[in-house]
């Protein structure tokens, strides 16, 4: 694929509106890592009315638990994990203004509905392309929950990180539907 559009993070509302399901884009800018355990903690903090360790409004979350960084690299292998495991927590984060998510695979109807209401977009990165994706991450800074090891929340800087718009802000999906008939 040539001439792929570069999209800057954090996302603006105009950018979110312009993204269409099925479109490949290259993401450049900051995002936060969070997967199962971090999502559980973040939503528990929200339920208790506590301040979160990072801002969510306008931000993008990447569902990733990287492998350890070898000497001289900011991060190890860093491909996406399955997004559906975060579905139970996602509407609460979208409510806080989360604009973008990077993961792989399906989302629940509740998530798609919340994305529509809160004007957010879901990007897919290629699962298992983790060493390639690592080359598009130029910085990694620990933000919270170090005891969660690979599941800690980090602030990443992406540089032309290849993704596909899997579900856009109007709920259109690029994933092939395979219902049991």
């Amino acid at each position, binding site marked *: *694929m040539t001439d792929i559009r570069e999209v800057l993070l954090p996302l603006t509302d105009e950018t979110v509106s312009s993204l269409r399901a*099925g479109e*490949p884009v290259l993401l450049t800018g900051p995002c936060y890592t969070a997967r199962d*355990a971090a999502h559980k903690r973040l939503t528990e903090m929200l339920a208790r009315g506590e301040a979160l360790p990072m801002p969510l409004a306008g931000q993008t979350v990447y569902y*990733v*638990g*990287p*492998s*350890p*960084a*070898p000497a001289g*690299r900011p991060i*190890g*292998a*860093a*491909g996406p*994990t*399955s997004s*559906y495991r975060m579905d139970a927590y996602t509407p609460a984060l979208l409510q806080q203004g989360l604009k973008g998510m990077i993961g*792989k*695979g*399906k989302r629940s109807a509740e998530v798609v509905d919340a994305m529509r209401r809160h004007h957010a977009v879901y990007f*897919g990165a*290629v*699962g*298992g*392309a*983790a*060493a*390639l994706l*690592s*080359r598009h991450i130029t910085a990694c800074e620990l933000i919270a929950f170090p005891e*969660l*090891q*690979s599941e800690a929340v980090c602030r990443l800087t992406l540089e032309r990180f*290849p993704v*596909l718009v*899997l579900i856009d802000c109007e709920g259109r999906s*690029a*994933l*092939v539907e*395979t219902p*049991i008939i």
Partner: protein
Amino acid sequence: MREISCAQIRAAVAQLFLTANRQIAPDIRQAVTDAADRETSTAARYALSQLTENYVCAEEDGLPICQDTGLAVVFAEVGQEVRITGGLFSDAVTAGVRDAYTEGSLRKSVVDDPLFDRTNTLDNCPPILHTALVSGDRIHLLGIAKGFGSENMSRIGMLTPAAGEAGVLRYIVDTARLAGPNPCPPIIVGVGIGGDFEQAALLAKRMTARPLNKRHPDPRYAALETRALSEINALGIGAAGYGGVTTALNVAIATAPTHIAGLPVAVNICCHASRHAEINL
């Protein structure tokens, strides 16, 4: 009796998991490359080309192919004429896994208690060890680094004998259909038919590491493998779920005698990053 020391076993196991995580098996690499060449969907071809590029990045940068470096599963075939010296066999296997994951920059993905505590064990131990006693004076070790994106999409069905071939075929294809894009297609589908509940699952897991160029020796099962593969590819899920003609690289079936009342079918899904390595000691 031939003697094999725990130190040898430990070093061999460590090497298996380092190799499996950093270098994809040549047959899988070839199959992914061929799939990229064949692909008609632009998005899926983009995904597949990222996978072939990823193998090179992993080699050049000293990184694992995937960040989920898996739960370590070891299939050990221990010859009855082997005497293991210097400790307990299972301890040596665990120590080898610990060495690979702590010294090789591999991710530690194991939690101690599955339901309540979920505290990381920090060394990716314990591994899952299946040991069989066989004839001879060698030890054969197969290490599988099993990612859970695909493991979570696996199923076991206790079908009735009346379900027959059509029922088995449908169960296999439906498992891939339900999994959709989640297990990182193109997938490798390991199937165990027969035995009992756990033997079917064990056969299925073992089949995820069968070389892609092999077929079941019974032509009827070989035909079922080919048929299931083409039906899964006809689902159109495609690489990374982006559509296209390749959803699976292989379907591998193993069979075992079973009870007159049963037809167990286990389907163990493995992602394209099927990481396994073996060694004979």
